[in-house]
C-alpha cells in the first residue's frame, strides 16, 4: 500500500543524493480557525458563522470552536504561535467587516501558523442585504486557497417541492437559505435543468395534462414551450453552449432522443428503435450524449456521437442503470440497481470500473456540483423524501434538512460568479 522509492546514487564525493518520494496523502480535514478582526460586530459574527458552516459542510475543513482556543487574537500581531501549534491548527482566517449604508466590505486574510505569517489576502464587496451571499464568496475563496478548485458555497440549488396539492419549483442557496419560488403549479413539475449561463432553466410541466418541456428566463419569468405535441416531451438537457436542448419524446411512436436548436427550432432525431430511449445528458465538449435505453431488455447507459450517430453501450454490471451524467470527460455518475436497492454509482469510462457511492437505499436524481467534487441526490426514508449528498474527495456524506414533506429533483447551478 505505501510504496517506498528511495533512489541512492553515489558520486565520487561519497555524498549520496537521497530522494524520498511521497505518494499518498492523509484524507483528513484542514484545521482552521475563523476570527473577526478588531471590531466585534453583529454582522461580523453572522458572517463568521456562515463561513464556518459552509466550510464544515464540505467535510474537508475542521473549524475549531472559539471555546477551544487558548488565546483569541484580534489581529495577526497578537497571534501566539505556541497556542495554535498545540491545537494543531493549520491557519487562522481573519475576517474584517466594514459596513456602510450601501456597501458591505469584507476583507479576509489567511494566516499560516507554522509559517507565522499571512499567506493570502482577499476582499469581497457587496450590498448589505446580500450578506449571506457575500459570506459564501468568502468561504469559496478560502476553499480555493487550500484545495485549488472552486468552492461551491456560493452556488444555487434548484428543486421541486410538493405540499398538499401544490407543486413548486424553487431555487435556494447551496445551504438551503434564501428560497425563491420560480414556478407554482397544481400539476407535477419534473426534470428541472439549468442552462450553463444560469440565466435560464428548462423543466417538464404537466399543467396541460401531459408532459411538456418549457424554458423559463429566471429574471423575467418569461416561458416558452419548446415544441408542441400531443405526445409527451420530457427530459430536457442543455448543450454546453446553451444553443441546443436534447430531450426525449414519444411523438414518433415510442420514447426517442432528439436535439432541438433553440433558435432555428430544427430537430435532429438521434435514436430510432422500439425501445425506450430517454434521459439524455451532454458530454463536456458537447460532442456526445449519454442516455438510458432498454433496448437490451433492461435500462442501461449508452453513448452516442451527436454528429456520426454511432452508439456504444457503457454499462454492463447490474440490471438497471439510468439517469447518467458526466462527472468529467472520463467518468459518469448514474443510478444503479443491483438486486433490489437503487444507489448512486460512478463509472470510469476507461477502466469500466463501477463504484457505488451511497449507502442509502432508494436513491434517484443525482446531480453534480459545478466543481465536480460533490454529488447531491434525492432519497426516501419511509414517507419522507429529502436531499442527501457525498463529497467525492473527502468521502464525507451529508443530509440537507428536510424542510418539506417532499423535496426532490435537485439540480445544481453552474458557477454564477
Amino acid at each position, binding site marked *: 500500500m505505501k510504496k517506498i522509492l528511495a533512489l541512492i546514487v553515489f558520486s565520487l564525493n561519497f555524498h549520496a543524493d537521497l530522494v524520498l518520494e511521497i505518494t499518498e496523502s492523509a484524507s483528513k480535514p484542514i484545521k482552521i480557525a475563523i476570527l473577526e478582526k478588531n471590531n466585534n460586530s453583529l454582522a461580523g459574527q453572522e458572517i463568521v458563522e456562515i463561513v464556518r458552516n459552509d466550510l464544515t459542510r464540505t467535510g474537508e475543513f475542521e473549524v475549531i470552536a472559539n471555546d477551544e482556543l487558548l488565546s483569541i487574537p484580534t489581529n495577526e500581531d497578537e497571534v501566539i504561535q505556541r497556542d495554535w501549534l498545540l491545537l494543531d491548527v493549520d491557519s487562522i482566517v481573519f475576517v474584517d467587516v466594514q459596513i456602510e449604508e450601501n456597501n458591505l466590505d469584507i476583507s479576509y486574510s489567511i494566516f499560516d501558523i507554522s509559517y507565522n505569517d499571512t499567506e493570502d489576502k482577499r*476582499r469581497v464587496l457587496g450590498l448589505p442585504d446580500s450578506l449571506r451571499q457575500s459570506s459564501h464568496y468568502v468561504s469559496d475563496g478560502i476553499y480555493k486557497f487550500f484545495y485549488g478548485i472552486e468552492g461551491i458555497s456560493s452556488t444555487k440549488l434548484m428543486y421541486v417541492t410538493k405540499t398538499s396539492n401544490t407543486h413548486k419549483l424553487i431555487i435556494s442557496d447551496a445551504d438551503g437559505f434564501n428560497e425563491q419560488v420560480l414556478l407554482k403549479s397544481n*400539476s407535477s413539475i419534473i426534470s428541472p435543468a439549468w442552462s450553463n449561463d444560469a440565466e435560464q432553466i428548462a423543466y417538464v410541466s404537466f*399543467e396541460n395534462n401531459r408532459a411538456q418541456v418549457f424554458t423559463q428566463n429566471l429574471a423575467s419569468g418569461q416561458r416558452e414551450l419548446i415544441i408542441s405535441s400531443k405526445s409527451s416531451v420530457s*427530459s430536457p438537457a442543455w448543450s454546453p453552449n446553451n444553443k441546443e436542448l436534447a430531450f426525449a419524446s414519444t411523438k414518433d411512436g415510442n420514447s426517442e432522443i432528439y436535439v432541438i436548436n433553440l433558435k432555428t427550432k430544427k430537430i435532429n432525431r438521434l435514436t430510432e428503435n422500439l425501445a*425506450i430511449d430517454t434521459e439524455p445528458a451532454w458530454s463536456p465538449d458537447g460532442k456526445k450524449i449519454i442516455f438510458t435505453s432498454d433496448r437490451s431488455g433492461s435500462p442501461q447507459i449508452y453513448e452516442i456521437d451527436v454528429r456520426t450517430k454511432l452508439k456504444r453501450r457503457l454499462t454492463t454490471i447490474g440490471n438497471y442503470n439510468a439517469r447518467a451524467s458526466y462527472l468529467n470527460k472520463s467518468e459518469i455518475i448514474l443510478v444503479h440497481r443491483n438486486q433490489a436497492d437503487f444507489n448512486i454509482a460512478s463509472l470510469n469510462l476507461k477502466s469500466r470500473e463501477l463504484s457505488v457511492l451511497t449507502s442509502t437505499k432508494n436513491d434517484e436524481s443525482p446531480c453534480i456540483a459545478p466543481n465536480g467534487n460533490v454529488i447531491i441526490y434525492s432519497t426516501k426514508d419511509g414517507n419522507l423524501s429529502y436531499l442527501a449528498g457525498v463529497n467525492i474527495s473527502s468521502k464525507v456524506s451529508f443530509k440537507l434538512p428536510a424542510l418539506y414533506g417532499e423535496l426532490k429533483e435537485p439540480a445544481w447551478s453552474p458557477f454564477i460568479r
Partner: protein
Amino acid sequence: MKNILISILSIFFIFACSSTPVEKVDVQETTTVDLTATKQKDTDNEVVMNNVDVGEAYVTILFDYDDDTLREDSLEDLFAISRLMKADSMYTLLVEGHADERGTREYNLALSERRAKAVEDFLTATGVSSFNIEVVGYGEEVPVDSSSNEDAWSKNRRAELFFIK
C-alpha cells in the same frame, strides 16, 4: 441607479487597493410564475385533454414490476371495453399510464406511457379505431398510495381508463 453608484464606488475601491484581489458579489434576480392564480391556456391552441371531472376510472389495469405487458387477469376487462367501443364509435377512451416510485422519474414516465400504449395496442388489435383512443403517461407523479411498500407499489403500477366525449 443605486447599483451604478455602487459599481463606481467599487471600481474606485479596486483601484485604490489594487494588490488585494477583490470580488464583487452578484445577486440573482428571479420572477415567480404562478400557474395556480390564473388558468393558463395552451400556448398553441392544440387540443388540450381536459380532464374536467372525469370522475373515477372506468377500469384500472394493473401491471407487474418493470413490466408493460398486459396480465391475463386484465384481458376480460379489456374485451368488455373493446365491445363497448365497437358498439358505439362516439366513445373516446383516455388511457392514463402510471408507474411506482422506484427507479428514475423519466424512465418511469416512458414506462408508464408504454403501459398505456399496451392497452391501446390491444384494443386496436381487437378492431377499435386508434382515433378513439388517447394515451398519456404520468410516470410516478400521481400515485394512488404514496407509501413505500409493495402493497402501495402494486396499486400504483396501473393504467386508468376513462371514457370521455
